[in-house]
């Protein structure tokens, strides 16, 4: 191999891309589902009908006893106000993994009887932590940097043919050529989106990679023997929670006078304060501007809005990444672009394996790599569909139901990875790909019948809803998987 700029960049693109690409596939796939987290929560709680009554601010007071209970348990509850995207009043809190949500009637404040679920925010947590807390967050941020490197090296490799490759797709050419076309078309057409997501996503989690403290100080602290120099202070007394909260409707009206009519989105409860925050849907700047009230008597404490050009730049980057301000059309564009990003990683990994199969196909490391690829590229969608199936099939009265849904997801994913690895180590990787792709096609194909059979109040002639969209996407995934399995 000659030592030229193109070969160096090709080597970097292939190895960094493959090593990070398997995880980045999961990040992009879960990210494009997280764009529709609110809508998916509605699919996962089918008892709440698509239409409901108009919001009445007086209904908020009926949620307060449940808020109080959560505060006593040490949680940080918040109410999400109804919006065009979700017509229900929702009481939410973070359970350490995802935001658990309970819907309330927006007019009466009556709690709706729906199944407990991890909801669409399951994919949000998966997207940026891989459900592994701060370690997962660091790893995802790190592969974000690797993605920036891979994009840069990819641009250098394809610089000459960047424009001509835009229109070049030969699905019936030789397999390697066809996969290469898919990879280049997905990467080049959606390059601006992928670049924006890679940079903004890595920047949002940059504190895990580049903290504003010296690594030397961190290492010193890690090795320093901790000897308490002073006697331990007595435990700080717990902050008292008022027995009752002031009525919320006047507080919302007061907050709207400051941040604009119809601009309130969340009411966050702390033991001593009630924070009414601007909705994320108000614009591309994710300002999280809020008006704070006393939890005792409801008087205004402060209005918090961070000023400055740098803060605004940060807010724009977050707003563009989270896309909570967008309409349905833009949300679908994000979904398709994210899915194409996932296709780019999957096709890149397949090309990596195809190019090396003849030379290294018998090597143990190659077989492990292919097993991992099966576990990632097919395993994650399998786990995702299993999550949807579990949501409808697990008993509604099951204790810790949200956790059980997550366990089903992880169990199927691990099973897929182990099975892929075993087939690969046995020297029959195609069998592994085929079986799992057929399973994926089956789960996707039968999701619509499952939805129709287990959703209360099914009607075929109603406005387009999240149910139809989710079922159609699963059906499309099934068709693609079936075709891929057939052509292998």
């Amino acid at each position, binding site marked *: 191999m000659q030592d030229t700029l193109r070969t160096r960049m090709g080597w970097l693109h292939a190895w960094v891309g493959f090593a990070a690409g398997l995880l980045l596939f999961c990040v992009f796939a879960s990210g494009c589902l997280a764009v529709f987290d609110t809508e998916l929560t509605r699919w996962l709680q089918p008892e709440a009908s698509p239409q409901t009554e108009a919001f009445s601010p007086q209904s908020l007071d009926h949620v307060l006893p449940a808020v109080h209970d959560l505060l006593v348990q040490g949680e940080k509850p918040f109410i999400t106000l109804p919006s065009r995207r979700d017509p229900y009043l929702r009481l939410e809190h973070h359970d350490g993994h995802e935001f658990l949500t309970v819907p309330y009637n927006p007019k009466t404040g009556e709690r709706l009887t729906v199944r407990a679920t991890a909801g669409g925010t399951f994919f949000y947590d998966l997207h940026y932590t891989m459900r592994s807390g701060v370690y997962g967050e660091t790893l995802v941020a790190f592969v974000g940097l690797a993605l920036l490197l891979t994009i840069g090296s990819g641009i250098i490799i394809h610089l000459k043919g960047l424009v001509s490759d835009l229109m070049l797709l030969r699905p019936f050419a030789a397999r390697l050529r066809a996969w290469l076309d898919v990879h280049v078309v997905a990467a080049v057409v959606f390059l601006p989106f992928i670049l924006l997501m890679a940079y903004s996503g890595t920047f949002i989690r940059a504190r895990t990679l580049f903290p504003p403290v010296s690594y030397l100080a961190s290492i010193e602290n890690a090795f320093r023997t901790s000897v308490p120099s002073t006697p331990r202070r007595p435990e700080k007394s717990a902050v008292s929670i008022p027995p009752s909260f002031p009525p919320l409707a006047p507080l919302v009206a007061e907050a709207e006078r400051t941040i604009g009519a119809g601009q309130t989105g969340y009411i966050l409860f702390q033991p001593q304060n009630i924070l009414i925050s601007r909705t994320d849907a108000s614009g591309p700047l994710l300002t999280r501007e809020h008006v704070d009230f006393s939890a005792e008597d409801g008087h205004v404490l402060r209005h918090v809005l961070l000023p400055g050009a*740098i803060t605004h730049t940060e807010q724009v980057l977050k707003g563009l990444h989270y896309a909570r301000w967008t309409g349905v059309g833009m949300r679908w564009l994000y979904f398709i672009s994210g899915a194409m990003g996932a296709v780019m990683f999957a096709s890149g990994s397949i090309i990596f394996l195809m190019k090396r199969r003849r030379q290294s196909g018998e090597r143990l490391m190659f077989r492990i790599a292919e097993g991992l690829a099966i576990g990632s590229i097919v395993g994650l969608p399998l786990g995702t569909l299993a999550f949807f199936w579990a949501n409808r099939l697990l008993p509604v009265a099951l204790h810790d139901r949200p956790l059980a849904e997550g366990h089903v997801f992880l169990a199927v994913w691990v099973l897929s990875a182990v099975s892929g690895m075993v087939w690969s180590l046995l020297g029959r990787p195609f069998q592994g790909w085929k079986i799992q792709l057929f399973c994926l096609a089956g789960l996707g194909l039968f999701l619509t019948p499952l939805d129709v059979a287990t959703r209360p109040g099914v009607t075929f002639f109603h406005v387009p809803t999240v149910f139809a969209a989710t079922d159609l996407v699963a059906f499309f995934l099934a068709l693609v998987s079936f075709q891929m399995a057939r052509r292998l």
Partner: protein
Amino acid sequence: MTFEISSAARSRRSGAIVSSPARRWIWRAVFVFALVWMAAHFITLGALKWGPPVRHDATVLGQMIAVAAFPLLFLLAFGTRNPLRGGIIAGVVGVVALLAVLLHS
């Protein structure tokens, strides 16, 4: 790729010991990674000194620059024909960033 396979096969047939550039590139990538990572770290730390007076803004600015600079600097340092030149580029940026941390009053 065709060239790669035939070259490897030729060298195997002739029994000649050919040092693969890929092996050199691994060490080069590790070396460049270490230098560029330290440069990005010093940029984040330095932003607190030379950046805006508000700590939050300074941290955000430093991280914005670090995340953008990391891939650019890495590709620049890894892309040069002469490995020493690449190392010098990344090293100089790192030293300048370190000096900005140490010397800025």
